[in-house]
């Protein structure tokens, strides 16, 4: 695995970028969460519902160039997947990429694609960003810097990015803290700066994130409670796509 591309509007992983150079000379391929099966916690493999021949013949990708909506349409057509960008949910009209998948791993209800194809209203920009590229972005609170993006925590059912892992570096002894994308005020992509709607003292007092310790829902409750925010699980979250 080389990278993940996420949608910077919905904060959802849209593709895995897989380095297949060992068997496809010099090629990277994209794998959509539409094809990802159930992950186990102790496995060392992400199972996908496509075969090697399908991957080999899939539309090529140049990872040095942005993924266009046109490419995505070709890709989705090739695999016979519904378009995620034309519906009321995070994945078309569903909230999970596997919602329309049958037991054989395919999407037989493509008759419904007629209205899954409508653009979300923002033209041809798919708003895809590389997780690798965003790692290292500076994080700025309302009253100053708090660290940089060290990583991401992802919900493997919806493939939503639930938290940015923030490394506080020298400012707070290198502790890691979590920041929800819901609390992001602005991102300056040119300057690689993420501004969050939090203040430094609140971040300093926030629960520390330890990647070696299990992270149950109770820990999320503590973090949201600390910042006085409603958890995304508490009430249906409303997102208006522009």
């Amino acid at each position: 695995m080389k990278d993940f591309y996420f949608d910077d509007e919905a904060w959802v992983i849209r593709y895995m970028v897989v380095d297949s150079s060992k068997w496809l000379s010099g090629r990277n391929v994209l794998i959509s969460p539409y094809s990802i099966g159930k992950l186990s916690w102790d496995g060392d493999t992400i199972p996908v519902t496509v075969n090697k021949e399908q991957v080999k013949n899939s539309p090529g990708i140049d990872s040095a160039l942005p993924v266009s909506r046109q490419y995505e349409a070709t890709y989705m057509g090739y695999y016979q997947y519904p378009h995620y960008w034309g519906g009321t949910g995070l994945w078309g009209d569903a909230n999970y990429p596997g919602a329309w998948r049958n037991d054989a791993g395919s999407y037989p209800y493509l008759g419904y694609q007629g209205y899954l194809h409508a653009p979300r209203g923002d033209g041809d920009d798919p708003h895809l960003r590389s997780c690798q590229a965003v790692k290292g972005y500076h994080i700025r609170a309302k009253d100053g810097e708090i660290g940089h993006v060290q990583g991401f925590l992802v919900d493997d059912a919806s493939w939503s990015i639930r938290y940015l892992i923030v490394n506080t570096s020298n400012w707070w002894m290198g502790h890691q803290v979590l920041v929800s994308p819901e609390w992001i005020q602005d991102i300056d992509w040119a300057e690689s700066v993420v501004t969050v709607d939090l203040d430094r003292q609140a971040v300093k007092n926030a629960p520390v994130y330890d990647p070696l310790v299990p992270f149950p829902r109770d820990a999320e409750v503590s973090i949201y409670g600390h910042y006085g925010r409603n958890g995304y699980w508490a009430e249906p979250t409303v997102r208006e796509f522009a």
Partner: protein
Amino acid sequence: MAAQCQKIDQYWAANSGDRTKPSAMPLARYRDRPTPGEPEMLRSVEKLEGLAIGATDGAIG
């Protein structure tokens, strides 16, 4: 699945606007992991990057 399709049919029967216009788009609502105490489902991208990708007939990367 049939029930899901029926719900969507019902939705669009009741909201028969022009779907190509943003103003006709309903708000996207979602609700996942609704209650505390559910099994852990969050994974770090860093850990995921370390996993192999297994197609139905072998590893692809």
